[in-house]
């Protein structure tokens, strides 16, 4: 292994820029003459707009323009779309209520966009926005998804009866029912998967600019997938054709899913830049981010697991209500269906599984993919019920899991819920985690803690995820509006440096380093001579972007494919230069050697020869050394692992302290272990946040977001969290060239279940997330219901 190639913990190339304040985030960019946009947002969860008067505001200092939904409609712009058409269990397409860029006659959540003010300064725009006079007719709001289908529930959209977007199912219900009749034992759980607010530290921002000379637009925006932004803005919003629209996502300060989606603000800011003839910048305040970023999770679930007398799982059935919020965000419909239902086999050989999901709309902010997206929800259901089953049967929870694991010799394994797992060794990860967590010593530690008046608990999460999303043909057959390949271009420069253009986008993942390590390994160049370019539709051929832990498995595979083309072309060049047969040329790590001789050429020499083609026949071999590739994955990848959490609860205060968190993950081959560990840490922190601290709360009557700031919504802080003990097993992915799977979401997928299994173990009863000190204390003192409100 070279010091900077595959497998090395190379320190990140991008760090110096971030550490010296030289990063360029959207809000750091200033364009000449730029104006500022401020959105007037609905103060009501549900109201009819009777009138909007902008006359007074328009005369205020610095105001360049004010636009409302009528102006958008007058320009024939399209509305925001949901890009995944899910078919319900009756074979009917899901409901697709309209989502205007600015509200026309109704507002449907607190924070819904009503108007935009463009002014010389942000302060002027804010002051003018407050002077817009909107007359609302407030209506009753629907907040709780469990109430959405009741006859008395307010209707969110007139074309969505019962507020039901779809009633979706997967699996064989008859087989499940039959198996339940033979069960020795049935474990039942009712779970709430709490609603989360992503809170990337950089608030969303957009800077739109129209150039009259070229009749084209440039949009700088906080996006995880700038090409998808361009595609949607061109094809559906109809701001400009793709040839006239460049989308740049420069340094982006975290995403976690929330910056995948196409939002109203960037569309309106871009469109308005032509209307006012000036660049238009919009930067969200944190309060706006709370109100209007797509939220995550928000499921209400009942599940039942049937077991035989030996603890073997016979069948599993799950009924879930999933909250979409007021409108269907870009990929929302896929999250509680194909990214959730298909994962419900977990690591287990359960023969029959059925899941039913009712996706509903409510008067709350849209809900879409948030780190893990469907898979944390699935893992939480599976791993909570398995843990409860072990308690019901008085079995060791590790042993119950082991007894039901899909055995290593059963792969590829077809689950009853559509996926075909390609590889796995679940007991391997469990065993390693048991040793690291000193599971054998837990009883002693629990007794010692009890002597101190503390309650100890231990909990497991043996998770699986489906990453590397995904084969285009498969997702197309399931209703996706796009293909989910990735593109790359690898350019050897004449003087030997390599530029990699990737359609993946880095917003914390360290692609500039990891992808450069691929070039070191495959092309034999120095890491400092590799430049990775991402996030610009003007420079990169195409891209589907970064989400679902797909950047290395799909984006990295595209890069490797382009590198393979470089190496193949180099071989032809070497054959001519050295007058050798291509078959006699060996290639390894940047050097071509003629078998049986001491003759060799380095890749740098080949590149020079390609760009100064004096000695190669250019009628047979084109000059230059620049190749592009698109890679469409053959299957999902299936990372897995076991996380074990040990907690200690102080019954006097209800405070839960994590005393040890162990994570053993199998991500296949690892390019940069340091970066992978960092990804796991961050995922666990978000998972612990969900389990112990975080929860978006809307007032059940008014629909006001109660947790609308960092003062009210509990973000995990340094002293809330433990150190994490991480390790790996390595089961290479069999179907991509690097044998990699993806590591970005594992922590957020596994941690909530591991933490809550530990908390409920300590308490001896179920409580819902987040297990705040108040809720834990109430559970200990049995003074209040354990269920969430």
């Amino acid at each position, binding site marked *: 292994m070279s010091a900077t190639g595959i497998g090395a913990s190379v320190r990140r190339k991008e760090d110096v820029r*971030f550490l010296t304040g030289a990063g360029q985030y959207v809000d750091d960019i200033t364009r000449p003459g730029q104006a500022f946009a401020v959105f007037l947002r609905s103060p009501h969860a549900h109201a009819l707009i009777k009138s909007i008067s902008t006359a007074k505001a328009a005369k205020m200092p610095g105001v360049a323009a004010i636009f409302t939904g009528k102006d958008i409609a007058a320009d024939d712009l399209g509305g925001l779309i949901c890009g995944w058409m899910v078919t319900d269990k009756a074979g009917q397409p899901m409901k697709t209520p309209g989502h205007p860029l600015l509200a026309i006659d109704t507002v449907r959540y607190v924070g819904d966009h009503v108007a935009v003010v463009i002014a010389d300064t942000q302060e002027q725009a804010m002051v003018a926005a407050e002077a817009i006079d909107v007359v609302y007719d407030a209506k009753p709001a629907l907040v709780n998804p469990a109430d959405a289908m009741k006859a008395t529930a307010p209707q969110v959209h007139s074309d969505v009866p019962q507020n039901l977007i779809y009633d979706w199912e997967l699996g064989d219900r008859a087989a499940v029912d039959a198996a339940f009749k033979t069960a020795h034992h049935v474990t039942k759980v009712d779970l709430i998967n709490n609603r989360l607010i992503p809170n990337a530290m*950089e608030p969303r921002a957009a800077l739109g600019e129209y150039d009259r000379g070229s009749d084209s637009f440039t949009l700088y925006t906080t996006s995880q997938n700038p090409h998808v932004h361009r595609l949607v803005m061109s094809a559906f919003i109809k701001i400009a054709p793709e040839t006239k629209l460049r989308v740049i996502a420069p340094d982006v*300060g975290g995403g976690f899913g929330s910056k995948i989606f196409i939002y109203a603000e960037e569309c309106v800011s871009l469109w308005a830049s032509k209307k006012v003839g000036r660049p238009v910048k919009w930067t969200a305040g*944190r309060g706006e981010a709370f109100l209007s970023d797509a939220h995550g999770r928000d499921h209400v679930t009942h599940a039942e697991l049937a077991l035989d007398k030996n603890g073997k799982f016979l069948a599993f059935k799950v009924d879930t209500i999933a909250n979409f919020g007021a409108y269907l965000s870009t990929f929302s419909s896929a999250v509680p269906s194909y990214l959730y239902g298909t994962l419900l086999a977990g690591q287990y050989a359960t023969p029959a599984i059925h899941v039913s999901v009712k996706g509903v709309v409510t008067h709350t902010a849209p809900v879409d993919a948030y780190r893990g997206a469907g898979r944390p929800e699935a893992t939480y259901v599976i791993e909570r019920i398995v843990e409860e089953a072990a308690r019901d049967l008085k079995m060791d929870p590790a042993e119950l899991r082991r007894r039901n694991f899909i055995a290593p010799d059963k792969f590829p394994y077809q689950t009853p819920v559509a996926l075909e797992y390609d590889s796995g060794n679940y007991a391997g990860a469990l065993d390693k985690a048991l040793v690291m967590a000193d599971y054998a010593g837990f009883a002693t530690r629990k007794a010692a803690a009890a002597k101190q008046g503390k309650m100890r608990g231990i909990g497991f999460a043996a998770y699986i995820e489906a990453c590397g999303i995904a084969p285009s043909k498969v997702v197309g057959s399931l209703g996706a509006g796009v293909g989910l390949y990735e593109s790359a271009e690898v350019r050897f420069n004449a003087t030997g440096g390599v530029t990699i253009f990737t359609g993946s986008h880095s917003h914390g993942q360290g692609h500039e380093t990891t992808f450069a390590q691929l070039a070191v390994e495959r092309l034999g160049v120095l890491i400092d001579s590799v430049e990775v370019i991402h996030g610009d539709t003007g420079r990169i051929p195409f891209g589907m972007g970064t989400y679902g832990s797909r950047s290395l498995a799909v984006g990295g595979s595209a890069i490797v494919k382009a590198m393979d083309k470089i190496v193949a072309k180099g071989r032809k060049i070497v054959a001519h230069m050295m007058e050798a047969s291509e078959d006699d040329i060996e290639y390894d790590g940047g050097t071509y050697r003629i078998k049986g001789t001491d003759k060799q050429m380095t890749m740098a020499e080949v590149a020079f020869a390609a760009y100064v083609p004096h000695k190669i026949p250019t009628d047979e071999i084109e000059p230059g050394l620049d190749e592009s590739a698109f890679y469409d994955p053959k299957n999902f990848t299936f990372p897995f692992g076991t996380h074990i959490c040990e907690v200690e609860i102080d019954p006097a205060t209800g405070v839960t302290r994590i005393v040890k968190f162990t994570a053993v993950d199998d991500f296949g081959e690892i390019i940069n272990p340091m970066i992978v560990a960092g990804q796991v840490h*961050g995922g666990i922190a978000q998972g612990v946040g969900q389990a112990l601290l975080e929860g978006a709360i809307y007032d059940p009557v008014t629909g006001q977001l109660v947790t609308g700031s*960092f003062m009210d919504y509990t*973000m995990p802080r340094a002293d809330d969290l433990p150190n994490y003990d991480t390790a790996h097993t390595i089961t290479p992915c069999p179907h991509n060239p690097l044998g990699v799977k993806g590591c970005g979401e594992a922590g957020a997928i596994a941690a909530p279940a591991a933490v809550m299994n530990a908390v409920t173990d300590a308490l001896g009863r179920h409580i819902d997330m987040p297990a705040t000190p108040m809720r834990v204390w109430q559970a200990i003192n049995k003074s209040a219901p354990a269920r969430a409100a």
Partner: protein
Amino acid sequence: VSMTVNGKATSVAVEARTLLVEYLRENLRLTGTHVGCDTTQCGACTVHIDGKAVKSCTILAVQCEGAKVTTIEGLAQGDKLHPMQESFKEHHGLQCGFCTPGMVMAGIDIRRRHPNASEETVRHELEGNICRCTGYHNIVKAIMHAKM
């Protein structure tokens, strides 16, 4: 208002309500200092005023009259990173980089006040700085082990 920023004298006429962070980002174009919230919770805007870590979103520029202000741009000596910057790189204490300037500035002040800070001390002192990427594990290590 006049103040020394990163060793250079600056003097700009500003509205009285101008916050220090606005002065730095908009008047001086020092955009390394970030704004991550509107309630003084996240700490992304942390700078040093006369050597002490202060959230620049919660102090007016005029309150800094005559002060010596250091921002993330002012730490490195040419190409040589400050030991705290070096330690963040070595320990992978940053991912997206957005909270990083505030973390580094806060980290320096923590070590100034607690030269041999324990992990517990660092975690407690970091209460006013939020990171969503790293889970803090490596930030805490970086602050503890910076060769200051």
